[in-house]
């Protein structure tokens, strides 16, 4: 009755190497879960590079400072995608935010990650504020109105305001 071949031999030595619960022969968290830390790694790296310039003032990183921050946001928006695709019922995913179970690390981290997205958006807005204001003042028509909305009504570009930013 013993199955032959390579797998058969593996089965023969299995009693010597250990026992696995039947339900644990299925690995629940697979490739999509591995993609997720890969993406968060890119986010964290890009955010660190941008911080080296914006927070710690290292002029060497000036050329990539803005680009790195945009990269961080772009990846951060897509970080939940592999997790959503992995869920059995992705349409219910917001339940973790609407009715979080506070002893669950997953629920709490969902709220923490959305805080991080908000932080990134705020930081990018402050970073690009001079550019947005300048575009708002110099373009017209529908595009100009869009730039006005993006400036959130703040057109102050005085040195004092820029220092505050």
């Amino acid at each position, binding site marked *: *009755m*013993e*199955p032959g071949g390579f*797998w058969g031999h593996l*089965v023969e030595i*299995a*009693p*010597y190497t250990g*026992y696995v*619960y*039947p*339900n*644990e*022969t*299925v690995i*629940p*968290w697979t490739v999509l879960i591995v993609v997720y830390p890969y993406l968060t790694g890119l986010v964290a790296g890009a955010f660190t590079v941008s911080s080296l310039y914006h927070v710690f003032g290292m002029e060497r990183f000036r050329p990539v400072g803005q680009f790195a921050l945009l990269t961080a946001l772009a990846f951060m928006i897509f970080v939940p995608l592999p*997790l959503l695709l*992995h*869920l*059995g*019922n*992705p349409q*219910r*995913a917001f*339940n*973790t935010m609407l*009715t*979080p*179970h506070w*002893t*669950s*690390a*997953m*629920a709490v981290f*969902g709220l923490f990650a959305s805080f991080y997205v908000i932080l990134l958006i705020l930081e990018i807005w402050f970073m690009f504020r001079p550019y947005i204001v300048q575009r708002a003042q110099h373009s017209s028509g529908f595009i100009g109105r869009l730039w006005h909305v993006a400036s959130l009504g703040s057109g102050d570009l005085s040195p004092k305001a820029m220092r505050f930013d």
Partner: protein
Amino acid sequence: MTNPSDPSGKARREFLRRLGGAAVACTGTLVGTGSLGTVPNAPKSDGAAAGSGSFPTKDYDWTKHRWAFGVDAAKCIGCLRCVEACKAENNVPGDAHHFNTWVERYVYLEGETGARVDSHHDPVNIAASGSEGEYRFANRYKDAKVEKAFFVPKLCNQCTHPACVQVCPTGATFQTKDGVVLIDDKYCIGCQYCVQACPYGARYFNASKGVSQKCYWCYHRITKGLQPACVEACPVGARVFGDRNDKQSPISLFIRNNRVQVLRPESGNAPNVFYVGIDKEVS
């Protein structure tokens, strides 16, 4: 202590009185709308709201029971009727990787110190049964010198401190007042965090439904006064089930008349399946 502009403290008393009223009103609302998992220890008020003295349903009051399960491994013959009965009763996927309950075989060969463990999901045993939907233990040790051997039925332990409930991000899995851990499959998002968390391997992911699934001691049967399907199917009485609140129930007698133990007590989960006749190696 007193407010200089209000020596009698009347304003403060008035404020406290209103605060108390508001608190009572809030509590009332919470009890009225409380979901299953968060109902405080006030079954009477809940029952009154439901129009009878019973909660969660009219015919069943879960505060009146404390279910527990007993396994006498010395009696188990490894026939696996329990596994097949469970699969039929609970719509468990019909393959060798998803089980609400399963049976393990521990075999000590002469001259060996450790046990050899296998279960009916093992490829050798599946080859012997001829299909992933039927189960039997292959006679794989017939040429070996067996010193000692026994079977150990396993199922969800319905722990008192369940790790799966702790990690569920939505609260879809919860503990009932009668001690059974249930899953709301209309609320489960299918993240499989609980499958990872369970130290006993009792949970699995049902891909066709997209939710986690596990043994719940046939809650649909026990709340109607029936026995779980596996207990009913067992030909040798190796599985015992009952209410610990009833001192003469089979499980109360089982725990009282035997030296029982639980699996992996060091995990801190405080299981509610009690075993007789297993070695220290069983976990």
